Structures are given as structure tokens and as C-alpha cells.
């Protein structure tokens, strides 16, 4: 273990509010796993995987059917915090094509309440190539806003200004005090892979080979979700599982 003593001042500096700069655009990374672009009053959330629980239930794996309510509850709190004019759901919002039909009435009502008074964009994902028309919002394959491009699946190779989901990045952080595995944003300043937001969405370690082709020049930094805030952590300090 390194014997470096870390001063309180350094700790303070590391716990200042978390900004991520992508393609020169500064976004706020929220501990819930959403991004907020203040200038556009735009909130971005990835991989909600609504109705994942009931999707398993179809195969008689009877997971607690509260995941949609839990996910929408977390999202409602994030939306209340930022009051965005527009929300982009970055694909895989629904765990499968029939997910929207299985949603309970109460969950539908919660979703409608979140959409009220703001633009809502469903980006198509591999789990939900055709986002449901019945649930409000508009469907799009990808969307471009200024220097930023929002799509579900990241393109291979360098891709300046892309914000994507799909991979569910998590970082395993090891220090002298212990080890943690948490969801994270992965970014090299040019592009960003967002953490999955869904209550039952699993994670893929940042050290997995799947991330390598996306960051050919240099390894991404992990912006790890803490309980209250996001912590920027060097790639070298993120371990394989």
C-alpha cells in the first residue's frame, strides 16, 4: 500500500461538486447517476431497464416487482433537484419490448407526472429499439445538441462529443481502507459512458475489454457515484473484479 498521507485540504479539494467536461462542454455529474447540462436545462439518464423484474418473472424467476417503482422514484428525486426543461432517456429505458405493457397503473402515473411540463426523449436502445408510443415522449435513434451527440450504444474508436450508455460501467476502487464496487461515469474528456440508472441494472467493470476500443488514446477516468456526490478517481486506481 502507498504510505501517502493525505491532508484535509486535499480531501476537501477532492470533495468539491463534480463537473465533467466533455468536448469542451461542462456538465454536472449527479450522485444518482444522471448528467445535467445547465445551459440547456437538460437532464440525461441512461439504461433505466424498467420492468426488468417482471421480465425475469416470465421465466419464473420471481424477483421483487418493485424495481420500476424504485427506479422512477430515484429519477423523480433527480428531476426535482434540477427541474429540467428536457429529459433524454438514453436507451434501454425498457428491459424488453413488452415491458411497457406490463407496467402497473401506479408506475405509469408516476412516469406521466415526471413527463408533465417538459420535453421527454426516448433514445432507442438494443432492449427497446421501438420505445412505446403509448407512454408519452418522442422516440429518436440519436440526438445532437451543440458539440454533444446522445446515443445508446457507443461507437468504436474515438468519438468526440458522444454521450452514451449501454455498457453499465462500474469501478472497483481499492485503498488502504477497503474496497468498493460502484457505478460510475467513464470519460476521457472527449466522450462519456454513463452509468446504468435502473434499480436492477448490473454493472460491467471499467477494466473489461469492452471499454478498450472506446478509449484508444488514453484510459478513461472514473467518476464514481458516492452516497452524496461523485468522486473522480484515476483509472490506475480502478481494479479488475
Amino acid at each position, binding site marked *: 500500500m502507498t504510505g501517502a498521507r493525505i491532508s484535509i485540504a486535499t480531501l476537501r479539494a477532492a470533495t468539491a461538486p463534480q463537473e465533467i467536461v466533455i468536448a469542451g462542454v461542462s456538465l454536472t455529474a449527479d450522485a444518482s447517476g444522471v448528467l445535467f447540462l445547465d445551459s440547456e436545462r437538460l437532464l440525461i439518464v441512461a439504461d433505466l431497464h424498467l420492468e426488468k423484474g417482471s421480465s425475469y418473472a416470465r421465466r419464473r424467476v420471481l424477483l421483487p416487482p418493485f424495481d420500476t417503482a424504485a427506479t422512477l422514484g430515484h429519477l423523480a428525486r433527480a428531476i426535482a433537484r434540477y427541474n429540467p426543461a428536457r429529459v433524454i432517456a438514453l436507451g434501454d429505458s425498457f428491459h424488453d419490448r413488452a415491458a411497457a405493457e406490463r407496467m402497473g397503473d401506479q408506475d405509469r402515473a408516476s412516469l406521466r407526472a415526471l413527463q408533465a411540463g417538459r420535453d421527454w426523449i426516448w433514445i432507442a436502445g438494443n432492449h427497446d429499439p421501438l420505445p412505446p408510443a403509448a407512454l408519452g415522449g418522442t422516440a429518436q435513434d440519436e440526438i445532437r445538441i451543440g458539440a454533444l451527440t446522445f446515443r445508446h450504444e457507443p461507437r468504436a474508436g474515438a468519438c468526440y462529443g458522444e454521450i452514451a450508455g449501454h455498457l453499465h460501467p462500474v469501478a472497483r476502487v481499492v485503498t488502504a481502507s477497503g474496497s468498493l464496487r460502484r457505478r460510475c461515469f467513464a470519460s476521457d474528456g472527449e466522450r462519456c459512458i454513463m452509468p446504468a440508472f435502473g434499480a436492477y441494472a448490473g454493472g460491467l467493470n471499467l477494466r473489461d475489454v469492452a471499454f*478498450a476500443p472506446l478509449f484508444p488514446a488514453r484510459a478513461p477516468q472514473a467518476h464514481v457515484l458516492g452516497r452524496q456526490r461523485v468522486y473522480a478517481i484515476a483509472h490506475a486506481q480502478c481494479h479488475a473484479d
Partner: protein
Amino acid sequence: MRKRKTQAPRALLPPLFADWFAARGWTPRNHQLELLAHAQAGESTLLVAPTGAGKTLAGFLPSLVELAAQAAAPRNAPGGPGLHTLYISPLKALAVDVARNLELPAAEMNLHLRIETRTGDTSASKRQRQRRDPPQILLTTPEQLALLLASPDSQFLFATLRRVVLDELHAMVTSKRGDLLALDLARLRTIAPGMSATGLSATVRDHDELRRYLVAQDGSGSQMAALVTAPPGAAADLSMLDTRERLPWSGHGAAHAIGEIYEQIKHATTALVFVNTRAQAEGIFQQLWRINDDNLPIALHHGSLDASQRRRVEEAMAQGLLRAVVCTSTLDLGIDWGAVDLVINIGAPKGASRLAQRIGRANHRLDEPSRAILVPSNRFEVLECRAAIDAANEGAQDTPPARRGALDVLCQHILGMACAAPFSAHALHAEISSAEPYSALDRASFDAALDFVATGGYALRTYDRFAKIRQNSEGLWRISNPAVAQAYRMNVGTIVEADMLKVRLVQGRASKAAASGPTYTGPLRRGGRVLGEIEEYFLETLAPGDTFLFGGEILALQGIVENEALVSRARGDTPKVPSYAGGKFPLSTYLAARVRALLSNPKLWKSLPAQVAEWLELQRARSVLPGAGDLLVETFPRGGRNYLVAYPFEGRLAHQTLGMLLTRRMERLGLMPMGFVANEYALAIWSVADVGARLRNGLVSLDGLFAQDMLGDDLEEWLEESALMKRTFRQCAVISGLIERRFPGKEKSGRQVTISTDLIYDVLRRHQPDHILLRAAREDAAVGLLDLARLAQMLARVQGHIVHKDLARISPLAVPVMLEIGREPVYGEAQDEILAEAAAMLVAEASGSVGP
């Protein structure tokens, strides 16, 4: 009317058997005849006998006698004679061994019996034949029995059953396996009402608990099997290694005594060297070989090693080819080695009964005393060894008390019963409550379990259309789809190891440098030999390139691919020692009380090595000795921190839980705790605030600090985030069948398919905190990883009896636990602090204040 004698009726040993005994120069032992008499009277019986007392033959004698009589009588029933006796062993290898031993008398007496085993290794075709045309005697394990009972053939298969023999019963009843077995026993009684049960057990603390386990209960607790006890064997020759070396203050390596242990092995024919953890087994094995100038055949045996390797060691042992085996509790039970004439127990014995079991592994002949040497690996363990030797010489026992049947096992069993045949809820509840561990199961809990099995048991009733079991038109519960039975068969059993990864040997490649740079671990070459399995959470503490001991070799971790840890052989002789905890036992409450008594009474110190007595004298002079009924708390400053050391002697698990809760409370009181470590005897907490001064000035009270209400809200709050609780929940989720541990044909990708139970736990806790699986997990936590029950007892015991000693410097007694700091993981509310620390490293690196 004369009072009925409690003595057993006289048994009739048929001439064939009497002759057989005589031909071998044996006389049937009293307990063998008594057991026969009880069986002939149709009574279930518990036989308590020491190792080597002919327990197995006693258990089978009634069956052999009956089967011999059946063979002599003209057969009038059509078809085969059917299954007569079922034998259940906790170990596959033991079932195979017993079958072999049984063949001999059966053949010598010309009984023409079919005696077969059924284990995970039995071929599919043989299993199928066994179901159609069962042998007269079938030897198997609890899991295989559960599978047989869940099949539609179970009625046919077990209708002819006359007897079930449960071997090593004392070892099975203490776990969830025992719960499952009890439920299966209840089902056997339903199918074959005339059947009786025979339990074979080593001496335990309370025989009545086992006697109740064997027979149907009605809730009164008065139903008990008959009891037959064999006379105890010769007193064991027990001693503590009187080391010439300096006794370490802490640690469990016993490195100081390796030379002396080696000398003992040299002078014995065959020695079993018992240790408490796999890590210790690896360490001792390596150290012994380092000084093995005589090239003695010394082998290693523990639960992580590949099964084929373990079997090779067992066979070599049975053939007398080995001089010593370094082993963990995997060899506590079972197979008769015969030639073992010395047991060496390294480290703390943890319990009097456990020690007695291990001693019993030497010399399976009753008339000769077993020889055993205890080797304490540190000073506290000297006290524990002394207390255990005294307890063993008195014959005191401290086996754990009877368990309450686990709810997750109940859920698994209910599904199994639906797979066998449609059932009525009322009848199944009655059957289940006849099993001793479930005799207090109320109907509401049973219904909750039934609801869980059917549709998940959720308040939100959205899964009715996906039900696993449904009621038919007659109100009987049946499976909704054959796939449900298939899934049940893949998931049966109660043993959920921590996520295990296969350890596979590949060509070396990765280095430490590759792991820390921004390079990616590309695909590694696969295809090497599998060395065994290791817990995933142990590997979490390693980075690629780190070395550890496994299977007696030093290995370097190359990387983890799917469910395999790829390793290569490493050079050098200072591995990062494996700290994987497989097989750690907590110190028994009984032994802990004896250790406290020994500590508090200087008159007893004469029996201790001089250096230990001097250490205690020094403690008496510098601080105070913990009293037998007290809790001693010392406070002192050291290296700019303020320490609080408490000595509850309640075992590491209870101390860890106490540490978690105490630091929370200290946090609230503004004492700014920074971390703690726990060992079996003590707990050390360090803090920014001077706790000693606050106690002195009456600003904080110890009774308040240790008040029992910490088990209320504080506990609830902590449990929510506790990794231990999540691990406990995961086991319940697997055993209950919520998530599948394996998918047909998809075993390999299981890790990817299975959803994280941590996520399920978080969601369920918030949305349905009273769900049956959370109840199951809490009940497990009370006796399992958190040892809450024991902590609660301790807190109640010490109220008003806390002795505080404010010291200017560290006390002699505190040295061992203080030495654990830096060696054992430090606990605390680390969560976000870990992230802050890692983030600060990044900032510091960027500003150039520390090197990378």
C-alpha cells in the same frame, strides 16, 4: 403394578450372526445388542458412542438381522423386495466407505443383499435403475434424499422403507442441512409410517435435542427416541506443546513451533495435523516441507482443493502411505483411518466438543487412549488450549443448541414437495411441524413460505400469472409447469459457498506493472489444469500479479475471466498469504467463560507456560485482570491516537458487529472514531477524541456506550448497508429458490446471468421490509456472520459490570489485538471515505504532492 423398567428388552441375535461374531473372535457389544432390541421393538433410537465403538455396525445390525430373516422366509410379494434401509451421511466419501465396510459381513454371512450408494457421482443410468428397482440398502447424502423425495417416484420408492440410519447426526443438525434432513425425515414418516430412525452421534451437550430430532413432534417436546449410550473410550492423552521457543503475541501461523511439530510427526506412525482455516493449512504445510529433510510423505487436505486431489490424499491415507496430513475441519468427520496415532491441533481449539471430535480421529480403538498435542499459536491461545484440555478431561461438551428451522430451507422443501405430488397445505403444514426444527412453525409463517414459493410472496400481486405452483380444482398445490421441477432439481441443497471461482493454472504473463498502467488485461490463454476453488471475495483483495499460497504452491494471479481465476506458478518464497476465511469457527461461549475464569484466578496459572504466567502478572501490575463476570475496558493514548480496548471474549464475529455498532454510537457522541480491529478475545477502537478523559470526567458513561439499545435502530440502520447482511441475504435467496444457482445447460455463464442479489436486497428492503426472505436473512444473521444473539447476551451480562482502566500507555493484555492492526482489515463506516481517499490521491497526484 410394577414400575416399567427403562432398560431395553433383551435382544435376540440370530445364530447366523452370533456365529459370525464368534468366527471373527468378537463378542457383540452391549450397545449393539441394546440398539437391536429397540429396533426390534420398532422404536427409533439415538446411539451415542465414541469413535471406534463399532457405531456403524451397531446402526446396521438391526437391518441386517431383519433382511436375513426376510431372505430365509419364502417370498410371496411380487417384484423385488424393495428398499429396506436408507443410510444418510454428511459426506459422500463416508457413504462410499460405509458401503464397502458393510459388504464384508453381508458377504461372509451369505445374505445376498444389494447394497448401493447414490451420490452426485452416480451415473444417470444407475440412478434411473435405482428408482425403478431399488437396492435393499441405499447409502446417500441429505441432498440426494431431497431429490428422491421430490420425484413422483418417491411414494413407490420409499413405501417399503423400514429404517433410516443417520450417521454423524451431531454434525448434521447444526446447519441448514440438518433442517432439510429433518423435513425429509418427516416426509419419509408420512410415506412409510412403520419406519423407525436410528441416529448415530458423538457425545453432545444435550442428547434430548437429538432424540427429539429423530421422531415426530407434537409441540409438547415430550416425544423422544430411545437412547443407547456406549461406554466412553479410554481417556485421551492430552497435552499442550511445551515450546522452547518464544510464544508470539498474535497471529495464527505457529511458525515458532514448526520444528517441534516436525519432531512430533517424525516420532509418530501417522499424524493428523488439524488447523482452523485453509490459509493456516497452506502455511503450515509449506513450512513443514521447508524443513522436511527426511522427505516424510506429508500431504495437504482442505475444502478448496480439487475433489480428485482430495480423494488421492484420502486413498493414500487409507493405504497407510502418509506420515502426516495437514487438514482443516474437512477431516473432522468420517472415514476410519485406523493407523492414526497422533493428532496435533494447531491454534485455538474453539470448542471443547470440537476438540474431542478431533482427538477421536486418532486410534479408532477404544481400549487405547488417543494421543493429542495442542499447539497454541499465540499467548491468548495458550489460555484457550488450557481451558479446552481441562474441559476435555472433564468430558464437558459445548455443541451448539438446537436450531430453529430456517425459512429459506422451508421454501425450498415446499417446492420439492409440489414436484413430488400435489399436496394440501393443511396436511403439509402438519407434516412439517412434526419435524423438530419446525415444531414451532406457525401457520402464518408456513402460509407466507407457500405464498413465496407460488408467486414470490409480494404485497404487489403482479406475478399470479407466472406462478410456480398453483391450486388445482381440489385445492391441492401442484407445479404449474415441468420446467419448475427441472429448476428445483438444479438448485436443491443448502450449501451455498461464497461465490467460488475455479483456480486454473495457465502460462505466466501478467505483471504488477501491467495491472497499474492504463493497459487492459487482454484475453489470457486458457486450458490449464484446475487446482481447486477459491472464494471470490478473497480474490477481491488481490490485484493481478499478487501472489498467494494455494494447494501448497505459490501462485500469481493473472486475471479473472468469467468464473475462473487464472494463475501461474510464481517464484520466490514470500507470498501474499491467503487470508481466505474458509472454515473459521468462533470461540464457543462455554470455552470463553472458562478462559475468563482462568484469567481471573492467578492460582490456576501454575498450569500455564512460564512466559504466559509472567505476561498475566505484568497485566495485573500495570492494569487489571478481567474478572470472570466483568467486561474490562482500557483506554490509553498511543502514537497520537486514543485507543479503547474491550475484552468481551465472545469471538471475532460478535466483536466485529459490536465494533460496527459501537463506532456508530461514538460517532454520534462526537468521539470521532477512526477505525477498529477485532480478534477472538478483544476489540480495539481508535479515535480522535480522548475517550479516556471523557470517561474520567463523566462526560461519557461506559454503561451508556455499551447499552443494549444499540441492537435497535443503530443495528437496523447499519444492516441496510452491511456487506455481511447482503452476503447472508444472498444465501437465503439461493436456498429459497428466488434466484437460481445454476441454469440447465448454462452453468458456465451463471455469473453473468444471475442478477446481483445486492440490488434485489436494496429494493426489497425499501418496498417490503417484512418479506419472508428478509426475515430469513435476519434470523440467519443472529447466529451467523453477525452473531447478534451472542452479542445481545454479552451486552445483557455486562451491564453494571464494566470495569474501566484509564492508562498512560498500552497494557500487556492489549498487545495481541493491537498487533492485529494493519494485519487484519480495518472496519468502519468506510463506504464514501474510501472514494474520498481515492479521489484525494488523484488530486494530490495532479498537484504533484505525492508520487504515483
